[in-house]
């Protein structure tokens, strides 16, 4: 059974909030004893998604949860915005697809860095991306 050990929420409304999200995710990953490569992966994924939340979603929040299944712990991050949403999620998940002049690696690349990746979006209502990295 999955239990929730901790939950905290951070706002994403500026460049410095992206830095703050990176730093708190790093701190929690270190505390949980993630190995260095996995720390780097979850922090990099968090940075990509926090930037999407700010640049495409017009700001929003990042919820950080620590989960346990009894044997292992995980960090779960939920990025949520109430921006324009994504019309075609399949297209948005393709490497190199961007509407904002970036490299188009934020979503597709982040999916490769974590164990679980879920995305929900409705045009006009916003976007929610949930990533989980197990220790």
């Amino acid at each position, binding site marked *: 059974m999955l239990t929730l050990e901790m939950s905290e929420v951070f706002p994403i409304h500026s*460049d410095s909030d992206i*830095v703050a999200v990176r730093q708190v995710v*790093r701190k929690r990953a270190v505390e949980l004893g993630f190995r260095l490569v996995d720390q780097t992966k979850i922090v990099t994924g968090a*940075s990509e998604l926090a930037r999407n939340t700010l640049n495409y979603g017009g700001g929003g929040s990042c919820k950080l949860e620590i989960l346990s299944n009894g044997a292992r712990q995980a960090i779960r991050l939920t990025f949520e915005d109430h921006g324009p949403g994504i019309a075609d999620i399949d297209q948005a998940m393709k490497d190199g697809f961007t509407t904002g002049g970036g*490299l188009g690696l934020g979503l597709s*690349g*982040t999916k490769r*860095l974590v164990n679980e990746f879920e995305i929900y979006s409705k045009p006009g209502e916003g976007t929610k991306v949930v990533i989980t990295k197990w220790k």
Partner: protein
Amino acid sequence: MDRIPILKMGRILLVTIQVDMHDRMATMLQDDLTQRIVATRARGVLIDISSLEVVDSFIGRMIGNIAAMSSVLDAQTVVVGMRPAVAITLVELGLELPGVRTALNVESGMTIISSSLQSEESDADVGNE
């Protein structure tokens, strides 16, 4: 506003990134460097990222842009000191850095730039004979 310092050493500009940069700071560094390359007529740019714990696609793009712009301005860019965990993450993220030379540390980065400048000069000498 915080800025990343750019040091001039002969014909090389040295940038050591030691803070977790927010996006605007990275963009500013890109602009500052381009101006300094022109102002100092630098032929090489050495970017030391050994303190960086994370290089995401934004910072990666900035590094690629710096390399492309300096190449247009007749300077070459070498990125030094990338941490192994950062390298692994960059590859899985799918970020390639075409045209960006890398070296393990500042010293070998300097050697790469100096030796390519020297070979350019000796080529020029041959051409003048």
